[in-house]
């Protein structure tokens, strides 16, 4: 269809809108008033490049569009109402909402929202088919041999194009009923249907050793139903509320089965399994089987209350108790029929987690200028799932023999307690200071650190010299200890290994950053100043610095700082400018040791040490203007947004003989430009034309992704990769879009 015909159709439609019987501001029918509007138009465009990123979460078609529909019906007595809104009608990101109710009594809302998520279009390819749908992937053919060139030729010939994207459809119903100003009852039901495909890696064989990767398109078919019911009463100086939340997740495809492309004994049911993994095509597992996310459910009851106490004190408290349940039957250890299934002590996890939250807060304002707050919080992740024993170990990637005998799982649990105190004092009308203290105890049932404490202290100042100026400055210092850090303590119990064996295997000198002793400093500055009524300036500066003083190996430090400035300026009634600029930088440093043997440590083999440093820098800028060219008749909006991000990783060291040298990575870069200009012409008080231009340009360079294709044996020439196949979805292609924008808005 050419553009002349499209424009004619649009003009005809617009004419009918203009000639429609509705006139004036709103329509009165009996006891009802009706108003609303519609917008319809078109988006002619030229586009080059990768559409996936352009339409990552949106649908911008080159066709007639209906960006908005609205209908508002109200009782003339301003008692009842019905509001209907729709955006992006008929497109994959469409949204509909219908609200009905009576003011002050009841409000009900029905909504349907669609969120597309596009990963890649027209770049991924796979030789697998899914003949019955579901989670079974079959190969109608296989390579002639397992030599790299044969695998390459086979996959290039057999692979078909596949798009990787998800679709999220969310239906929701809310009701809020307030029979009296004190009582409120709420109910929500929402259903989330998530479907599509995304990339998913799978392996045959073992690493280190011999293996082949087969990257699949994971089928996603999730259904989640959520319900929330609550009731609350607000009395004079107190409130009490009870809420129940239920969430039911069901995975319609929870098992993935896929053919092994390098077992060349046959295709489909003709394939012959052998227990041991083979790289020469003569055997090994014919298939692999993966357990995708199991269905689960969660139930939570929460009780929240507040009370006004003597001496201008307020109590706020919450108790919440939940159940998280998961009881999917375990799959067998392996789909390989030639391997005897090892023993396991249970047929399912009988997963049962009971999260408990207790929060008590006191706020006091007895003295006019003194604000006090104290709180205690407990979060307890009580894991009552079964301990499962695997006396024979498990089967690694569907090949014999079983490994790691005498395993016992441990239902991992932890709790976190927080105590905090704030004291704020108004020194003068223009100056308020606050001092804060906080403590957090993290207790873990297993892992390297069982109990750690983190303290924080710091002041905050608010300086308000006039109603039009505000400056905020805060500083907080945190320090966390990690007593008795023991790399030999593990979550999964390998009973045939001693703690010393495990320390050695995992490297005793390593400190995991989320458990390690840490010093943190946070500084935050913020300023807002309305120079004149027409001009407002904002500025901010945030710094977070983390140091890990006891981590000989592991993350050493990370440092993040981010200055920002912004303004809003309206020099004239019809003219407005706005802009923002932000720069963010994130630096980190990691010490590591290259190890081929457990005896290699920083002390025994210092030449194996290597250091890695990362730096992310991002500039973000936006600028715009609203101009009323002719009052109430013609308006112009121009706005431009820009983001430039870079991620660098530099590495050095590991100079030992025969070792892989630590090298730098190519810089990851991404840039985003977006310009919108729009002219709105109010041709009639009910009708407006919008004409505009939208420019969007993005570039992304990520060496690790840009080079992808189904066979990567020429990039990594190792034997394992020669046998491997990937989807080759290059998810970061650049694009440039020039989009014309023409719509007619009709209001009544």
């Amino acid at each position, binding site marked *: 269809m050419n553009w002349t015909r499209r424009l004619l159709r649009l003009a005809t439609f617009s004419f009918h809108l203009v000639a429609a019987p509705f006139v004036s501001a709103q329509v009165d029918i009996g006891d009802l008033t009706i108003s609303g509007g519609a917008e319809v138009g078109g988006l002619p465009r030229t586009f080059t490049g990768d559409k996936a990123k352009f339409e990552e979460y949106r649908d911008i078609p080159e066709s007639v569009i209906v960006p908005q529909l609205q209908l508002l019906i109200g009782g003339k007595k301003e008692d009842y109402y019905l509001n209907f809104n729709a955006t992006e009608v008929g497109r994959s990101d469409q949204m509909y909402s219908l609200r009905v109710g009576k003011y002050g009594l009841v409000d009900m809302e029905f909504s349907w929202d669609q969120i597309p998520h596009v990963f890649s279009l027209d770049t991924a390819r796979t030789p697998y088919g899914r003949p019955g749908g579901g989670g079974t992937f079959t190969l109608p053919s296989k390579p002639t041999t397992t030599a790299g060139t044969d695998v390459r030729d086979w996959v290039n010939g057999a692979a078909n194009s596949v798009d990787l994207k998800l679709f999220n459809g969310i239906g929701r119903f809310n009701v809020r009923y307030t029979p009296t100003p004190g009582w409120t009852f709420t109910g929500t039901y929402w259903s989330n249907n998530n479907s599509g495909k995304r990339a998913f890696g799978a392996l045959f064989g073992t690493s280190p050793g011999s293996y082949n990767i087969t990257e699949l398109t994971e089928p996603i078919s999730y259904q989640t139903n959520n319900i929330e019911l609550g009731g609350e009463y607000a009395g004079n100086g107190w409130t009490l509320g009870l809420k129940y939340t239920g969430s039911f997740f069901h995975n319609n495809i929870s098992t993935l089965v896929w053919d092994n492309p390098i077992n060349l004994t046959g295709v489909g049911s003709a394939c012959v399994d052998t227990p041991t993994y083979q790289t020469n095509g003569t055997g090994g597992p014919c298939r692999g089987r993966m357990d995708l996310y199991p269905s689960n459910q969660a139930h939570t009851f929460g009780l929240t209350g507040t009370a006004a106490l003597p001496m201008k004190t307020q109590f706020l408290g919450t108790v919440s108790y939940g159940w998280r349940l998961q009881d999917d039957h375990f799959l067998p250890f392996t789909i390989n029929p030639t391997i005897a299934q090892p023993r396991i002590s249970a047929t399912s996890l009988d997963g049962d987690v009971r999260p408990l939250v207790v929060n008590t807060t006191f706020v006091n304002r007895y003295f006019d200028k003194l604000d006090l707050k104290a709180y205690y919080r407990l979060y307890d992740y009580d894991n009552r799932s079964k301990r499962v024993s695997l006396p024979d170990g498990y089967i690694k990637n569907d090949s014999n023999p079983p490994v790691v005998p005498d395993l016992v799982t441990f239902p991992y649990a932890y709790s976190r307690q927080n105590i905090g105190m704030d004291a704020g004092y108004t020194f003068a009308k223009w100056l308020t200071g606050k001092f804060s203290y906080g403590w957090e105890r993290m207790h873990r049932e297993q892992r390297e650190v069982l109990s750690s404490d983190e303290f924080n202290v710091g002041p905050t100042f608010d300086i*308000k010299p006039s109603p039009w100026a505000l400056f905020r400055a805060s500083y907080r210092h945190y320090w966390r200890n990690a007593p008795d850090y023991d790399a030999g303590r593990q979550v999964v119990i390998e009973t045939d290994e001693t703690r010393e064996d495990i320390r050695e295997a995992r490297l005793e000198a390593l400190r995991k950053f989320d458990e390690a002793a840490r010093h943190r400093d946070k500084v935050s500055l913020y300023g807002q100043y309305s120079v004149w009524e027409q001009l407002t300036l904002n500025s901010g500066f945030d710094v977070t610095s983390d140091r890990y003083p006891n981590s000989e190996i592991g993350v050493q430090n990370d440092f993040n700082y981010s200055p920002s400035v912004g303004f809003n300026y309206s020099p004239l009634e019809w003219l407005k400018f706005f802009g923002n600029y932000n720069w963010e930088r994130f630096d980190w440093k990691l010490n590591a040791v290259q190890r081929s043997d457990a005896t290699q440590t920083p002390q025994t083999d210092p030449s194996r040490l290597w250091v890695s440093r990362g730096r992310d820098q991002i500039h973000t800028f936006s600028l715009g203007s609203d101009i009323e060219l002719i009052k109430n008749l013609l308006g112009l909006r121009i706005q431009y947004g820009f983001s430039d991000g870079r991620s660098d990783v530099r590495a050095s060291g590991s100079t030992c003989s025969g070792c892989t040298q630590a090298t730098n990575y190519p810089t990851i870069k991404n840039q985003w430009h*977006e310009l919108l200009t729009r002219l709105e012409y109010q041709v009639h008080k009910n009708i407006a034309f919008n004409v505009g231009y939208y420019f969007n340009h993005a570039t992304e360079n990520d060496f690790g992704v840009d080079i992808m294709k189904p066979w990567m044996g020429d990039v990594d020439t190792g034997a394992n990769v020669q046998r491997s196949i990937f989807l080759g979805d290059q998810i970061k292609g650049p694009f440039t879009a020039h989009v014309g924008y023409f719509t007619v808005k009709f209001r009544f």
Partner: protein
Amino acid sequence: MKRFLFVTFAGVVLFGAAHWTWTAEKEPVKEPAKEAAKETPPTYVGTEVCQACHAPQFEKFSKTLMGKIFLFNARNETEKQACENCHGPGSNHVAAGGGKGVGGLITFRKDSGESVALQNQTCLTCHQRGVQTYWNASAHANRGMGCVTCHTIMEKTSDRYQLAKVGEHTPFFTKRAETEVCGQCHLQRNAQLLRSSHMPVREGKMTCSDCHNPHGSPSPAQLRQNTINENCYTCHTERRGPFLWEHPPVLENCTNCHEPHGTVNDRLLKVTDPRLCTGCHMATQHPSTPRAPTSVFFFNRSCTNCHSQVHGSNHPSGKFFMR
């Protein structure tokens, strides 16, 4: 660039200080409560009296949700007071002939001299419940923010929640009013929404208030749910588990690996793979070995080329998250 930014920031501070010095003694601040106490105790005059002088404001207010309840659907005597329910009894204001700052009313203006606590208390009389239950203990209240910093009461600006900013919808992006309001102060987070790897906030499918309760909550960072993870599980329910084989740092805190506001790295990761994993895993062989960019341990999805079940596995053979 650093020097430019420092100079700009310093300039703003210095300009502010100069302006403060210039204005410091020029505007004696009225204490409306004290002023009112000197006069006759005020009484309620009724909305018709307010409307007589403040007709345009009245007309705009009547279109708001609060206006429709107070003016047309009042449920008790307090709500029937309408204007005076919030601004206070108006008899002294009327008797004095009206005017800005006259009669001891609570005006909610920036230059009124009223304390933020006084203004907020007016709103909290009705609104300290539901999502506003924890307001007095919230970070925003602690920083002296007023309800009227984010909300406009007297006219309908945003589609919902009476927010001070108007959202904007185009076929290309949608700026929700909530995101615009939060972005006024949270400049870094506002900028992060434009990162390459992001959640659909700038497309209008999510807002800040989908995860955070700006009115306060008993949870860290004013999250709506009890923990960071429970917040994420609201949408990503498949990762809730529990699993036979857990990955403990994942179970404790999703933000150990992810930055939910936006990053330049894929999948909202804070640090590029494989470095993210190497930070905790230094076992022999491949976790501890530095990898070239041409290595399968780096390209594509790096460690998750094989360890795809990194959030947890329920397969008996899934100890290393490969099944």
